[in-house]
């Protein structure tokens, strides 16, 4: 049986129908220099064993987060995931990335999604959470779109201390809507500045908490100012463990909370797949994007789970759906749910405490080094330091000694000269005191 069912005739007909000469015209949007010319220079064949050896050699060129002192965070964090999580998610009943298309037949899947929603609503301090989005950044894009549906206004103000990649995703998500996206400069804005920017056209202000540089700000006054004018506060949390230690976004007055759930249950995996968290107030539930699981009773009075409020969704409302995201990150949310269940409220709070205590310890060690200024007055498990040298060069130098010192801010802000000496450093429960001491010694040496 042929796997590709199209004949050249079929292709020619389809191209003619859509008015395209050649199939390559469909790839016009890909920059020329990125397109492959000709065939890859690959050997004709190799045995399975040879392929394995080849790829192991490639893999050995990487430095895995768990194998060296490792201090990179910036939206994805190296935490310990109990082995139980991996065992449970691989059960055949669970092992799929999808919510099922005939959902009610899969009561176990729906129940775990319901538990997930409950956990997310509780840690964010919100009334209701959906069954997840792709990841934190796409959830952030959806939040901007939802704020517009609620307020019917189209100006979105993005804090300059929002993760720069999240800023890019919001821009992409609104590329073909006529939303007006305002982006502030990094590291300089105050809450007061954001309040002054709110005008009649504003739908929402999107802030990060703790912010990209690690600072923890109280946005209560911002929330109040927004609510006075019927605008929404969107709070983004990229390190979800932080909510075990700091006031929940709900308590601050957030209307929509989005988050990256990777820290709980999921490994770094080169940036994905992760689990996007999305929570809001009950009064906005019908504008919530994505799937929502509800608990109910069946005809015999027994507890059961359903996908609820689905008339908002694509399969019934088509082009008027609240979102065109019709699936979620099921397996990653399952890992999140299992890890969170293992932790419990007490364990979650304790995990947060350990993370913060570790970061404080490292901050104290670094603060005494000549050539390092700690920029944060508040932080959870991540903070920014200003070095007396180019941070990217320092990180490169330490990589040679098998130490991954953190993220040079310039990696994400290549054009901003003022940030070129700044280094973002994260500490988690996996960071040992030895790791910290090695970093301290290495930095002392290179900053001398």
């Amino acid at each position, binding site marked *: 049986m042929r796997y590709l069912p199209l004949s050249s005739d079929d292709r020619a007909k389809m191209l003619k129908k859509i008015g395209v000469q050649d199939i390559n015209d469909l790839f016009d949007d890909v920059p020329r220099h990125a397109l492959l010319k000709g065939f890859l220079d690959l050997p004709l064949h190799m045995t399975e064993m040879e392929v394995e050896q080849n790829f192991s050699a490639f893999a050995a060129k990487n430095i895995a987060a768990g194998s060296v002192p490792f201090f990179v965070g910036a939206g994805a964090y190296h935490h310990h995931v109990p082995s139980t999580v991996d065992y449970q998610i691989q059960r055949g009943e669970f092992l799929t990335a999808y919510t099922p298309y005939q959902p009610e037949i899969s009561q176990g899947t729906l129940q775990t999604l319901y538990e997930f929603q409950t956990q997310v609503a509780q840690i964010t301090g919100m009334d209701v959470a959906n069954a997840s989005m792709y990841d934190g950044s796409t959830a952030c894009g959806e939040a901007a779109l939802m704020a517009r549906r609620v307020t019917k206004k189209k100006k979105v103000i993005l804090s300059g201390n929002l993760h720069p990649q999240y800023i890019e995703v919001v821009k992409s998500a609104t590329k073909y809507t006529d939303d007006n996206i305002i982006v502030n400069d990094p590291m300089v804005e105050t809450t007061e500045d954001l309040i002054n920017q709110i005008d009649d056209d504003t739908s929402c202000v999107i802030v990060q908490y703790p912010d990209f540089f690690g600072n923890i700000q109280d946005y209560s006054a911002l929330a109040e100012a927004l609510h006075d004018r019927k605008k929404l506060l969107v709070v983004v949390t990229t390190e979800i463990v932080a909510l075990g230690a700091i006031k929940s976004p709900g308590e601050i007055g957030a209307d929509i909370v989005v988050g990256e759930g990777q820290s709980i249950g999921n490994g770094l995996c080169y940036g994905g797949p992760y689990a996007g968290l999305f929570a809001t107030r009950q009064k906005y539930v*019908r504008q919530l994007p994505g799937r929502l699981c509800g608990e109910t009773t069946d005809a015999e009075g027994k507890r059961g789970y359903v996908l609820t409020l689905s*008339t*908002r969704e694509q399969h*019934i*409302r088509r082009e*008027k759906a609240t979102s065109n995201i019709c699936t979620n990150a099921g397996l990653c949310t399952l890992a999140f749910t299992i890890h969170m269940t293992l932790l419990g409220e007490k364990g979650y709070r304790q995990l947060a405490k350990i993370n913060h205590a570790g970061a404080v310890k490292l901050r104290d060690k670094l603060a005494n080094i000549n050539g390092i200024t700690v920029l944060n007055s508040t932080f959870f498990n991540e903070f920014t330091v200003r070095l007396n040298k180019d941070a990217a060069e320092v990180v490169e130098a330490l990589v040679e000694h098998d130490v991954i010192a953190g993220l040079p801010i310039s990696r994400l802000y290549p054009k901003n000269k003022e940030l070129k000496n700044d280094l973002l450093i994260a500490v988690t429960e996996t960071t040992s005191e030895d790791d910290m001491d090695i970093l301290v010694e290495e930095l002392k040496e290179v900053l001398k």
Partner: protein
Amino acid sequence: MTIYYSEDHEWINVEGSIGTVGITEYAQNALGDIVFVEVPEVGDEFAKGDEVSVVESVKAASEIYSPVTGEITAVNEDLEENAALVNSSPDGDGWFFKVTVSNKDELEELMDAGDYKTFIAGLE
């Protein structure tokens, strides 16, 4: 007072320069149990045929189109808590909103009760 009907199964009851709008018995019956009604805001302005409101039942979500051009003067806030009013009393307590009737000619394009009855009979 005169009641007019649209092909989208909305009714508008005109008293003076204000029309009260709802959906018909036929529409509520076709939709089934109504669980949510999204009403416009007072002060919003619409042209005839604009999407004003959304009604959501257990089996479908449908748009409500403005039968006339005008400004919203009142909305039925009871629907927020009790959307089932549209099922129990589509032509009474289940009204959606009130709108100014700025151009009476537009009413001529709508049906009266007799024509509407014939219209829905033709749908069955």
